[in-house]
């Protein structure tokens, strides 16, 4: 269950995620919020709103595949909770929460904090504290 601290990979990955946010703002004037961009594809919308979103999501799939194929992914096999119902429950919570709270780790935690948004700071502090509490209960209390 324990994973190794990989500071260099983490820092380089972080720089790439930041670069992604800057490229999307410079080119398209948009916040690189993964939940918002994905959710925007689930609603009926004009093509001007869906094409760039679809391109971004396809880009994520291409980027991930490139990194894995090039041997740049070194965090081992993906480890999920054993029960599929837990995975589904977590997914639903993440879907409801990011829609209701207008963002996730990228939109609030990276782009919002970089804009010094108080809403994003509040959201980031909230989801961090709750996630840490949930993991503590799951791993050390139950």
């Amino acid at each position, binding site marked *: 269950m324990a994973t*190794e601290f990989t500071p260099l990979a*983490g820092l380089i990955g972080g720089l790439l995620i930041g670069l992604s946010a800057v490229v999307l703002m410079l080119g398209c004037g948009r916040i690189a919020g993964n939940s918002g961009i994905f959710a925007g594809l689930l609603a009926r919308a004009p093509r001007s709103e869906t094409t760039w979103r679809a391109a971004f999501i*396809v880009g994520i799939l291409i980027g991930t595949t490139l990194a894995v194929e090039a041997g740049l992914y070194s965090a081992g096999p993906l480890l999920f*909770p054993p029960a599929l119902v837990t995975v589904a429950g977590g997914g639903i919570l993440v879907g409801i929460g990011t829609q209701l709270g207008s963002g996730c*780790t990228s939109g609030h935690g990276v782009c919002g904090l970089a*804009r010094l*948004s108080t809403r994003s700071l509040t959201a980031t502090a909230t989801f961090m504290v709750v996630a840490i509490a949930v993991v503590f209960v799951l791993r050390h209390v139950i």
Partner: protein
Amino acid sequence: MRVIFALLAGVLMGLGLAVSGMMNPAKVLGFLDLAGAWDPTLLLVMGGALATTWIGYRLTFRRTAPLFAAQFSLPTRQDIDAPLIVGAALFGAGWGLVGLCPGPAIAALTSLRTEALVFVAAMAIGMVLTKHIVQGRPSPKDTGLPAE
């Protein structure tokens, strides 16, 4: 060109999520588990991303408009309301339960693992339900601006 930039931004996001290891839920849970064998990697991912974005945004906002759009689409709301807090808390609960947030979940689809597919499908259902049931009535949020 706008689509090319969106695609490029997506590729960079995917590279970052994979290189940082964040697409593996174990890595994220290792960070969230402060009382266990703590893995601080996520701190450097967030720090690196935030520093890059902070500098890049400041340079970008010297322009009056983006390269390939009429204007910057930025959230304008500044009020801290209940949906923001409740939503962030529910998101945090799901994140802690599985170790996946939306970006890494999409990246994890490339593994073709059943769990990744189930998570993203459930996330999509949660988003659509919320949009139609909870946010069914027009609210100040529906300004045409993207959610963050």
